[in-house]
């Protein structure tokens, strides 16, 4: 099974990696990535904690201060939620396109569109996850040089839920990386065999 432009893959990959199995593997990975990104978005958007602190005591009545930690106080978390939302929509659209779009005429743009959209969404989710990760590190450890106190010791459950959303987002990032490479590899394998058959058909009448 020789490929285009002088590139050869070992023969056993062509035998093991049949077209049907690769399609379902890719679909399953996209479903996992969609679930992970959607979970990250939901957990971050619903992340909220209210806590009442006793600040001072006047006589016998304590003076209370109620503080709320919401995700939209921090711009990095807003970006994280938006990025993961967009990535989950992208994966959903790709799944729909694979399952339902076989009769649609793409005029040859299907594969470049999938590959470049995958790459762009990969960059997006990577940016969102890392910005939120470093903001969470700042909240957990504070920064003594800038005199910023840590907040995770006061708002423990908020930080824990944020950590869960971050883990889901990094999982989605790893899955999207795998999906990008697999879909390009898959297309190269599948299309090269059809090109070879084209060559045979064209060469025969001569």
């Amino acid at each position, binding site marked *: 099974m020789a490929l*285009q*432009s002088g*590139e050869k893959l070992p023969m056993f990959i062509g035998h093991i990696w049949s077209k049907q199995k690769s399609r379902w593997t890719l679909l399953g990975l996209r479903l996992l990535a969609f679930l992970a990104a959607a979970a990250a978005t939901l957990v971050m958007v619903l992340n909220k904690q209210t806590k009442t602190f006793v600040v001072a005591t006047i006589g016998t009545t304590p003076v209370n201060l109620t*503080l709320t*930690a919401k995700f939209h*106080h*921090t*711009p*990095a978390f807003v*970006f994280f939620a938006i990025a993961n939302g967009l990535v989950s929509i992208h994966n959903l659209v790709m799944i729909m396109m694979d399952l339902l779009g076989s009769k649609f005429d793409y005029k040859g743009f299907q*594969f*470049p569109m999938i*590959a*470049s959209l995958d*790459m*762009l969404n*990969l*960059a997006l989710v*990577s*940016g*969102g*996850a*890392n*910005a*939120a*990760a*470093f*903001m969470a*590190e*700042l*909240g957990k450890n504070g*920064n003594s*040089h*800038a*005199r*910023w*106190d840590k*907040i995770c010791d006061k708002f423990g459950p908020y930080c824990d839920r944020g950590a869960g959303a971050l883990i889901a987002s990094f999982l989605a990032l790893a899955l999207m*990386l795998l999906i*990008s*490479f697999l879909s*390009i590899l898959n297309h190269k394998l599948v299309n090269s065999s059809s*090109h070879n058959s*084209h*060559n045979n058909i064209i060469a025969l009448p001569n």
Partner: protein
Amino acid sequence: MAKTKRIIITILLRLLAFGATLSATVVMVTSHESAEVMNIKFSAKYSNSPTFKFYVTAEAIATGYGLIVLFLSSRRSFDRLIVILDVVIALTLTSSISAALAVAQIGKKGDTHAGWLPVCNQVPKFCDHVTGALIAGFVAAIVYLVLNLYSLHVFLTPLFPV
């Protein structure tokens, strides 16, 4: 002719990205300022924040990678490996710039809900220096993204169509 055009465009993009990452690293590393406000000594260096240390590390790795690839770019056997590594380096650059931007935004505007005061009023020259480094890093991330899309385009349309 098409092959020469492809090589020239790739080398130009890589040179631009190499220059951007190099300047981002150098400008961030040389940014430090001390200020004394009401007997409290504020000393701002890039190493005070783990995010900026990660930024410098990521940009330095991208600079080294860019230098190596500039010398290897026309060797046929490394083509696919270079495309894959380009994607990985572009991801690293976007993640480092977004993390650094998030922390720098806190430094400039503060976070009233967490009780964090902005530091740019005390050390304005440090803030300007860091802004310059972040702009260079942003340009580098965009150039690497364009390079990846161009490599994908070249990869998909083979040079000698049958």
